[in-house]
């Protein structure tokens, strides 16, 4: 048996593989991005995003958009492995299972951040609201990390079930609630220029969520893909 490849190198290889596949097909990213755009358009007409409403709901609209677009990315990225049979190849490769988890998780995170990086200026442009805010970027990073952490684990379960695409949001959204609260409250705080003491508890919540769910997903991933 070949010796196991170094951990970071395997993570990087898996991440790079996902990026290279995406660079060629661009289906994941364009799907997520167009979907996110549509959600914003729908919000515009569903909630009449005039100036007064926008002040209170921007954070909520942004996060709902990110979370919904995120589910598309998560289920596609895992379904691709399953349908092309490359998951079996990954499992046979002499790499740590944890490296597979972190590689896929970082890939999911990266695609989410890319979509968010495009949606933010677009939202600013559409609603004439400055979203260029360091604090907001930090919240988006923390929120997306937690989302990708638990989402990657649950997506690798849901694709192995009969009801796969239907199942992912049903499994994911109930455990996402703390993240929703933390992300929306902290983003809203930064956007309205609230005091640091008001935002800090919610940043702590995001950080706690990230740490807890990264570690538990990392520990449980082995049980999800063992064959």
């Amino acid at each position, binding site marked *: 048996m070949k010796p196991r490849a170094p951990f970071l190198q395997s993570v990087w290889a898996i991440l790079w593989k996902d990026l290279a596949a995406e660079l060629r097909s661009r289906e994941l990213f364009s799907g997520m991005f167009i979907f996110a755009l549509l959600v914003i358009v729908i919000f515009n007409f569903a909630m009449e995003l005039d100036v007064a409403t926008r002040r209170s709901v921007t954070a909520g609209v942004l996060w709902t958009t990110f979370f919904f677009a995120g589910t598309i990315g998560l289920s596609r990225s895992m379904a691709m492995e399953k349908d092309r049979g490359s998951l079996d190849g990954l499992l046979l490769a002499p790499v740590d299972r944890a490296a597979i988890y972190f590689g896929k998780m970082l890939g999911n995170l990266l695609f989410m951040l890319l979509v968010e990086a495009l949606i933010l200026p677009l939202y600013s442009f559409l609603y004439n609201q400055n979203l260029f805010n360091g604090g907001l970027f930090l919240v988006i990073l923390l929120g997306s990390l937690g989302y990708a952490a638990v989402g990657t*684990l*649950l997506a690798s379960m849901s694709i192995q079930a009969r009801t796969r695409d239907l199942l992912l949001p049903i*499994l994911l959204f*109930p*455990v996402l609630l703390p993240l929703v609260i933390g992300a929306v409250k902290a983003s809203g705080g930064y956007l309205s220029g609230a005091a640091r003491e008001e935002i800090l508890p919610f940043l702590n919540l995001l950080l706690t969520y990230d740490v*807890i769910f990264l570690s538990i997903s990392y520990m*449980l991933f082995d049980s*999800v893909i063992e064959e």
Partner: protein
Amino acid sequence: MERKPLALTVLDILSALSLLIATYLALFYAPTEAVMGAVQRVFYFHVATAWVGLLGFLAAGFAGVMYLVRHDLKWDVIEVAAVEISLVFFFIAIALGSIWARPVWNTWWTWDPRLTTAAITELVYLAYFMLRQGIEEVERRARFGAVYTLIGAVSAPVTFMAIRLFRTIHPVLFGASSEAAKGEFSLAPGMRVAFFFALFAFTILFVDLFWHRIRLGRLAARVDQARLQAG
């Protein structure tokens, strides 16, 4: 055919009896609360059913860990039994709580940490059964079930803390209470008896139901096996 154990029959009778007594204590023995009146009597069973829900929740998390460690399908049967009981009893607790909340809080529902966490746990457990339904292979179903139970068990306290960052109006009976809590009262001696007896009765009921459900799960597994052998 496996015979029903005698101890289980005794437990059946015991839980029926203690439930009857608990009902009597709650409805007739306990004094009527001065401010809230008769609706406060819902509280005895509300707390007791929530308690059973919590017991099931803890048992499910424990069984999930045990399954992932031991890979013994016995723990899967126990886990399903616990989740099912927890699902039903949290639902009853929420319904009873709403009946109490309508006159006291003037609303059926509020997004309080306890209420929301209980409701979210219900959703997690419904998702749990949907997940199981989508997988035919017994061993994989058990593995995924255990993983998701653990995710749910970890997320419930985090959800609770997260919502607690907002203010709560749920009364706290023991320990420090928040200033915003509405509908608090102290337990008079008669209430105390009814309250603790209800907890006791429902704990027995929990053990009884848990046992029944595990037995049912084991029998169902055996039926499946027999069906496979028969072709």
